[in-house]
């Protein structure tokens, strides 16, 4: 098979993959989410700037660019932070007691839908498992088969959007409930609370995961762990002893060779003949 035939086959497979219903559905979901995003941003009076995240998102969708979602998020962060209450000169208290509007919630839903759809789309058309840097090409087995996408998955996705937005609102209300301690600034207090909450969740989850991993370890893994601990504590002494032992073994071998002249003569003969 020639190189051009290979390329033709590859391009045909790629075309077939792009026209698959699952790929098309995720593409439509992303486009709809971007449209909703534009509407939400336009409502905030951002004028033509509201198109910037959507344009980046569309470009990333067309090229299946894996860095598209982070760029959309970062551009969105830039736009919204410029139009925030502090930039408008509003008081801190205004922010503290404000409740999210419908447009705020729609914005969250739109961004979450776009991010979710784009990443799943990438898993279908690019790769779901991390690429091995030593490979030149993407192995088709590394991408998720489009045939595995079911209607159940799309339904779950639809249900997840309001659920996670609602949970975010609950968390935000929880964050607003407490007054700052030690007279520290309000922003710092919120950041600290959030950071502590994240760290606590991470620590508890990590400890539980490592404990579960240890309880389900095989005898070989446990033996390896014990050996590793022993070696880390005593590796210098062990290294010294074993160096001496190896030296003694090699010296004994040298002496054996010297004390067996017949072996030496045989070696020399073989070498001479060759």
């Amino acid at each position, binding site marked *: 098979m020639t190189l051009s035939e290979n390329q033709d086959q590859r391009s045909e497979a790629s075309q077939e993959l792009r026209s698959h219903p699952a790929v098309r559905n995720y593409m439509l979901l992303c486009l709809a989410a971007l449209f909703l995003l534009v509407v939400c941003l336009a409502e905030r009076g951002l004028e033509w700037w509201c198109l910037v995240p959507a344009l980046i998102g569309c470009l990333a969708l067309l090229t299946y660019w*894996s*860095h598209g*979602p*982070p760029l959309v*998020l*970062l551009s969105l*962060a830039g736009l*919204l*932070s410029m139009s*925030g*209450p*502090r*930039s408008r000169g509003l008081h*801190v208290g205004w*922010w503290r007691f*404000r409740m999210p509007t419908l447009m*705020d919630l729609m*914005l969250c839903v739109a*961004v*979450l839908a776009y*991010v979710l759809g784009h*990443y799943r789309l990438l*898993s279908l058309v690019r*790769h*779901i*498992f*991390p690429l091995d*840097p*030593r490979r030149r090409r993407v192995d088709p*087995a590394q991408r998720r*088969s489009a045939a595995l996408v079911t209607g159940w998955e799309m339904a779950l996705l639809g249900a997840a959007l309001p659920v*996670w*937005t609602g*949970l*975010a609102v609950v*968390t*935000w209300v929880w964050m607003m409930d407490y007054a700052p301690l030690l007279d520290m600034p309000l922003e710092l207090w919120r*950041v600290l609370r*959030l950071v502590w909450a994240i760290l606590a*969740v991470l620590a508890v*989850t990590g400890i539980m*995961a490592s404990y579960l991993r240890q309880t*389900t370890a095989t005898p*070989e*893994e446990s*033996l*390896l762990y*014990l*050996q*590793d601990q022993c*070696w880390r504590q005593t*590796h210098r002494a062990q290294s010294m002893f074993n*160096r001496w*032992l*190896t030296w003694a073994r090699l010296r004994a*071998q*040298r002496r054996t060779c010297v004390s067996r002249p017949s072996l030496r003569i*045989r070696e020399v003969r*073989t070498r001479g003949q*060759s």
Partner: protein
Amino acid sequence: MTGSYLSRSREANQFCAEKRFEIGTIPFRKNIPGAEKIMLTSRGCWFLFSVLVILSLGLLRLSLPLTLLGLTLLLWFAAQWLGFLVRLPGMRRLRVEREVWDDRSAVATLWAGQTFEVRVRLSHDGRLPSPHVLATDCLPFAVEQLNGSIHVQGIVQAKKPLEITYRIRCGPAGLARFEGVRIQSADWQGFFYHVHFVHAVVILPILPALTPRAVQPTSLKRHNLLLPPGIHRFRRPGSGSELLDLRDYLPGDPPKTIAWKVSARRGRLITKEFESEVPVRCTLFVDTSSSVRVPTPAGASSRQIRYGKALDRLIDIAAGVLQTNASIRDLTGLCLFDEYGAQYVAPDRGSVHRTKCLWLLAAVAARSPIPSSSFESREGGGIDPDHLLPLAYSFAAEVYPELLRSAVNSVPWAMTWLEGFSGYSRRLHLGLLELLHRRKSTLRTLCWWTSFWALILPLCLLLMRALMRTQALDHWLLLVVFVAPLTALATWAGTLFLFGVDAVAGGGKRRRDRWRKQLAALLSARYGLAPGGLAMLLEDDDAFSLLVQRFLSEHQVPYTLPLYSPEGRYLFAAPQKVPVLANALVRAVGKGRDNELFVLLADLLELDDALDPLLRAVQVALGRHHQVVLICPWPPGLERPHTQGERPVSTGRLTPAARLDPGHLEDQVTIQRFHRAYQRLRRMFTRLGVAVLCAAEEEPIPLILSRLERLRNLGRPYS
């Protein structure tokens, strides 16, 4: 790859690692991923970074939509992570069921060159479905995938197992070891990634192929009485049914053998003598020592490299003779010998006997070579462990990712950056950079001692001066106070410089040390050397090299080894096998009867001065009117020796640069060395009247069969 033999063994290992395990082309350059751990992919990293930026900006800039958006995305991300984490323990409880089918049913034995279908079923009993998984069946090295896929992806549920089906073609005789299934799991977005290997070892023997030979002797009916299969006439007096001769009657002869008509004509009693009817026996002496078990690269496909060894051809010859003899019910014996001993199966016929012989041949074909001089040689005589390290580590990373986790098999960074592993055995052959890398701890100790004495010496002198109340030490004190800090400073500066040199130039060495430590820990635990075995394997290169070879051979991973030591000594020469073969031959002669053929399938190259016992044994066999044939195994890929009158095959015109290539020159020298050794062996045995053939040629089986036919026809008056 096919043309080279010896000098390319390291490259062959590297090539195998590259094709099969995707290791880098340059040793120790590329890292090998695959240790079992939950990994946040680059996709996940970038997303998390963006979310944290949004959340920070929202909180610091007092932006409600940003905060809300950040919280939404963060909560969703955390939920994905938790969901992935919760479903992972189910991955370790996956069950693998494997069946190998031929055209009709599931089989427990494979045959060389035949195709089979492998069916793998992946299931588990957990309540939670697995994340998205990609299951890859670990294909044995002894088989070749024909069609179907060794991958399957999806979600494993309690009632929905995943199935893999593909067809394989078996290679030469040996063992096919199915290790298990490699499981890669990820969430649907590709944020989290986990690798696990489900061990489900299935070892199936690959028996040698039984193909009918075109030169199979025909059983033509030339006499009135057709003897039963396996029985042949022999022109010596016996109890057969064909008349051999007439002679005078002797007292004691049975009356029924008296030829009455002839007796009446001659006037005295004449008795009839009948021919003997004996079976023809053939005993095959198959060399299974390390020298014929060294794999050599014999071609490469797009997926993996094909290996061949001289033993494959010997087994092919032995199986061919067994099959042909069995078809005419002749008796065939088998003697498998190596440098340690011999295993003898008496000549017999029947399918049970044949199957037993084939199993024995398959078992010896699966053994891997071990250089006889690994521990007996002087310094530097063993195999350099770096020769096999990339292959062994990449295999371990694929099959044992759970044992290379940093939680159970750690490599502290200080040990690679500040200390380095010494490896005592090779210390005399190190270059400057290697020496620097391995002896960093000495430099560090030197720094500490210099600093210590730079501090202690002036204090001692001051104390002495105060105690002795003398000013004679003043100039010494001045000198020490001036020189000692300078010395310490210079030592520290020099050490820092050397550490910097090692940091820049020692990237590959650090990676090699890391691989070696992890592999040594795995081998130490696996072979019962723990807890002290790890340090021993780090220091003793020979012990480590031997265990790596054992590890690879247990898993049926083909690897090549250099045949000659740096001193030019043949590492696989095993003169001990000659007396073993001689004793086995004498024993077979002692138990033999008439019409025996002894076929020696033995590698006797470069053992000229150790062949005396064998030559004497051959003379004994010939003296008893047996026949002996010597088949000399030949490494695949090596140019076979030329017979008289045959012109050497031209390998094409070489450019001057190619002629001066050290690898090419080394190959040529090796080939010539093999050819000369073969010619010497041939001369030695031809003097005794023993036919010597190279196993690489097509002649051995016809020659053996023609000798057998000659033995069968020995008594026929018409042949």
